[in-house]
């Protein structure tokens, strides 16, 4: 599903590469934790998958497409197959829960009838039934992240990228967030989650890829956050 082959990325004005000859494979339906300290290249990895950045060398395949050969014109179609969740939720403050989720479908031109059918289903899937008409500022952090997950998942993407989704949320609420991610993963969606949260990684017992200074230092199925723990 995601295939990195010897990928190196150096940002302009920086000597040290953000990713240094990284090769990794993520299969369809896998759940992968991307761990490592800040600046180890986790976010760069996710940005490369979305083709928000271009690698300096190496090849990236996402959903069977060679990103180097994907024209700019087709990038939106790639992104429609990838859902994204962030630490800061990125909801529209002037739209309610339903509208926030529906926005993702409206802007890719889905018909209204389809939106009316699908959005309530996804809102229920993330556990926000009955809160569809709340505004984001009336929701807790955990609930806001659920809205963001509903928006990321509403178009049934093949891949869900989560960049520290529990970074702004207390540990108790994080468990609920992880349950939703697990539920999404069980529908066959590949999930890649970058995180600092050792407790979560340890409790989930999923594949762990550890980055340090842009290099993969560990790739372990059913792993834990760090060997020191």
């Amino acid at each position: 599903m995601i295939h990195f082959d010897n990928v190196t990325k150096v940002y302009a004005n920086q000597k040290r590469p953000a990713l240094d000859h990284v090769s990794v494979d993520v299969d369809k339906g896998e759940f992968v934790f991307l761990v490592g300290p800040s600046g180890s290249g986790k976010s760069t990895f996710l940005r490369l998958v979305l083709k928000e950045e271009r690698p300096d060398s190496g090849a990236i395949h996402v959903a069977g497409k060679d990103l180097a050969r994907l024209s700019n014109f087709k990038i939106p179609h790639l992104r429609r197959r990838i859902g994204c969740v962030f630490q800061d939720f990125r909801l529209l403050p002037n739209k309610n829960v339903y509208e926030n989720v529906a926005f993702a479908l409206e802007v890719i031109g889905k018909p209204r009838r389809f939106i009316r059918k699908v959005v309530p289903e996804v809102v229920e899937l993330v556990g926000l039934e009955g809160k569809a008409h709340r505004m984001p500022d009336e929701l807790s952090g955990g609930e806001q992240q659920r809205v963001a997950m509903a928006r990321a998942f509403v178009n049934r993407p093949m891949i869900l990228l989560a960049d520290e989704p529990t970074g702004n949320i207390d540990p108790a609420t994080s468990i609920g967030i992880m349950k939703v991610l697990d539920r999404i993963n069980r529908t066959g969606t590949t999930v890649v989650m970058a995180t600092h949260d050792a407790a979560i990684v340890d409790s989930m017992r999923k594949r762990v890829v550890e980055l340090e200074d842009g290099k993969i230092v560990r790739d372990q199925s059913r792993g834990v956050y760090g060997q020191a723990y």
Partner: protein
Amino acid sequence: MRANFIFSEVWIGLRRNLTMTIAVIVTVAIGMALLGVGLMINSQISTMRDFWVGKVEISVFLCKKNDAFPQCKGSGGVNPQEQAALKAQIESMPQVERVEFENAAKAYANFREQYKDNNVLLSVLQVSDMPESFRVKLKNPGDYPAVIESLKGASGVSYVVNQQEILDKFFGLLERLRWAALVVAIVLVFAATLLIGNTVRLSAYNRRRETGIMRLVGASNLYIQLPFVMEGVIAGLIGGVVAAVMLIVSKVFLFDGVQLYLANTSPLTWETVASTISLTMVIGVLICVLASFVTLRRYLRV
């Protein structure tokens, strides 16, 4: 759904940037109006040229008794021999197409007709005050200098008036007006372009959250950019409509006003006004679209 979505986005954008939108509309309106006036002056000049080019004459006025002109002093007016010699001289010139004699009575009648509203002037004027003249029509109106030179010193001639010279002065004035209008129009179009760019930039900044999410969920570039471009187009269109009103007003009060002095001989037609308006509209909207696209390329990375 699509149209609905885009129009609500456009409306929100225009309302959020109301002051900038008004600035864009005003600049586009004045710029396009001046461009239109320039174009209308242009077509006015050419219709007037067409009208006058076959009609300009050289008037050779003849000495009367007690004329104050130095070359007539003491002559007691032109005598029939001089008049006949003059006529023969003019007719022999190769540049001349035809020549007519206008006697005092005819001149008086023409004058009465021309100034029929000016009773004071008409009440003091008598037939004997009117000079006699030859009206000379040239084959090519541009050949006048040689003809005038040879007639100026001829005996019995008081003075020579070349209508071409008067027309040239008038056309020169119109042409300067046209250039002034076009130069100011170009400056304003430039200002409008920058203003639209700035408006779109502000708008893109105000909506960076929305566009960021749109990018993320895979909205196409067109879908992301269209609301911004439409904002520019709508501001440009409103400016164009205001410009159209200004052009119609200038046609009625300015161009038709000038024609009153020219006895309505070469009026600006409504068709000309209509085509000028549609041309300026198209240019205005095109400028808005281009400025929006160029700015979006810089500030809305996709």
